[in-house]
């Protein structure tokens, strides 16, 4: 026993040193994550400085983007991004809310609900390049025949097709968050409404939705953040043109897709820098949307 005690003491000094190293490396890594994000932002700001200085706010409302003659106005891309994202959101909301209500309120359990839950997870898991690929070869011809019926120029590709693809891709975000929020509605509240003679629909409309409102809103925000930043699927089906789209069936470009297409060919400093400024705007917008979304969720879940 005495021998062990000596070993114990000798070994322990080593362990105490290791413990100190471990604790400080934990702190160091936490700091480095923070620094990483700050450096991200700083890199984007520094690299977009040339275009911020040269173009100022004209960058945002300039209607022409023509690198050949050094004109960089990003209005077409801002418009394209907003159009595709909000259109996608509009299309996806009935679906994602339906799923949220179905899984959160009507059937939390059962084989079909399990199946639905897995299907939704799978939608989130499929890589965006596969959505783009499929969209290009299956959805585009379908949209083209629709456009022929409607009598508009049958591009096939364009804002509308991108929105359809995006809508599918962002359903899971609002759906799964909405489901969690709806499940958190206290049973006592619902029972109170039932005891007053309310029907299921009335309970959902008067109790469940109002209660889970902020959670559903957060889900929509996260979906939006996702749609704004989505690159590959959109790039493959939007048509990649810098002309301002006149209708939703026209081809266009989003901020993300123009970066993806032109970044490696951008030869001049100003060209590259304006693409990075687009990236910076995209970064800031999605970050703000995400943080608001997360804050809403946090407030909702801790209340």
């Amino acid at each position, binding site marked *: 026993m005495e021998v062990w005690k000596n070993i114990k003491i000798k*070994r322990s000094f080593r*362990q*105490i040193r290791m413990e100190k190293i471990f604790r400080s490396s934990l702190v160091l890594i936490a700091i480095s994550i923070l620094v990483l994000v700050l450096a991200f932002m700083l890199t984007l700001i520094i690299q977009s400085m040339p275009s911020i200085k040269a173009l100022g706010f004209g960058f945002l409302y300039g209607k022409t983007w023509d690198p050949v003659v050094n004109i960089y106005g990003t209005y077409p891309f801002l418009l394209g991004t907003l159009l595709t994202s909000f259109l996608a959101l509009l299309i996806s909301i009935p679906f994602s809310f339906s799923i949220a209500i179905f899984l959160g309120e009507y059937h939390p359990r059962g084989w079909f609900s399990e199946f639905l839950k897995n299907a939704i997870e799978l939608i989130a898991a499929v890589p965006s390049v596969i959505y783009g690929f499929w969209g290009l070869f299956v959805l585009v011809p379908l949209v083209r025949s629709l456009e022929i019926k409607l009598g508009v120029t049958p591009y096939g590709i364009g804002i509308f097709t991108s929105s359809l693809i995006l809508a599918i891709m962002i359903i899971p975000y609002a759906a799964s968050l909405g489901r969690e929020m709806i499940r958190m509605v206290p049973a006592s509240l619902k029972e109170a409404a039932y005891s007053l003679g309310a029907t299921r629909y009335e309970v959902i409309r008067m109790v469940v939705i109002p209660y889970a409102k902020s959670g559903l809103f957060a889900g929509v925000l996260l979906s939006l953040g996702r749609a704004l930043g989505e690159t590959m699927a959109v790039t493959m089906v939007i048509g990649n043109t810098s002309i301002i789209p006149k209708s939703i069936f026209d081809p266009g470009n989003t901020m993300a897709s123009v970066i993806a297409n032109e970044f490696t060919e951008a030869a001049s400093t100003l060209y590259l820098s304006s693409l990075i400024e687009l990236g910076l705007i995209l970064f800031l917008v999605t970050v703000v949307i995400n943080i608001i979304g997360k804050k809403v969720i946090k407030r909702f879940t801790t209340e």
Partner: protein
Amino acid sequence: MENTILRSIDFDAYFGDNHVVKKVNMDIPKNNVIAVMGPSGCGKTTFLRCINRMHELIEGAKTKGKMLLNEEDVYSMHPIFVRHKIGMVFQRPNPFPNLSIYDNVIAGYKLNGMKITRADRDAIVESSLQKAALWNEVKDSLHKKGTFLSGGQQQRLCIARAIAMEPEILLLDEPTSALDPISTSSIEELLHELKKNYTLIIVTHNMQQAGRVSDRTAFFYMGELIEYDVTKNMFTNPRDERTQNYITGRFS
């Protein structure tokens, strides 16, 4: 007091601004069982956790005063050494769920990076489990996970794990409150055996248990040490009115 092993001098403990242990002076003699009792929230568990410096793990916790182990202040030693010398058993049995029974007992050595021979290891495991009166029940399943044992067995495994480190003092924080009566009595019997080799300090809110197992009893109330005496005296002839009230069940 002769052969005092632990002495607390004007000891205070806080949670933030909450003063939970107030100016406690207490001498603990070697090879005794000391029961610490009092109504819930009286600071008895906090006091116990101060002895091996577990209290400071909680955010905002502070202490003041001295806690002398063999005349050396534990607050001037590294906590790792303190905890080698002062073992602890918790309210709920908490064997490491990822380790086997054998590895649970030897964890204090193994995870401290102490290389000891296989024979020594086997000897430590066997003698610790013997002392914890668990050997006969688990000797054929040493390499099974400790979490498959019953609650009482798990608690005895935790005792074996603590005494494998050969501590001088063993702290027990309501070790039977999560157990059934049969397991409780087997743990209580064990305490009698253990006091031959160790000094035991047991926190309990159960007066009968304090009376059954301890040589001395300390009564805490509102963070203060109200009375500390030989158990028999305390129960038959308490000096303080508050002790009397507690013993006769006049407050809960």
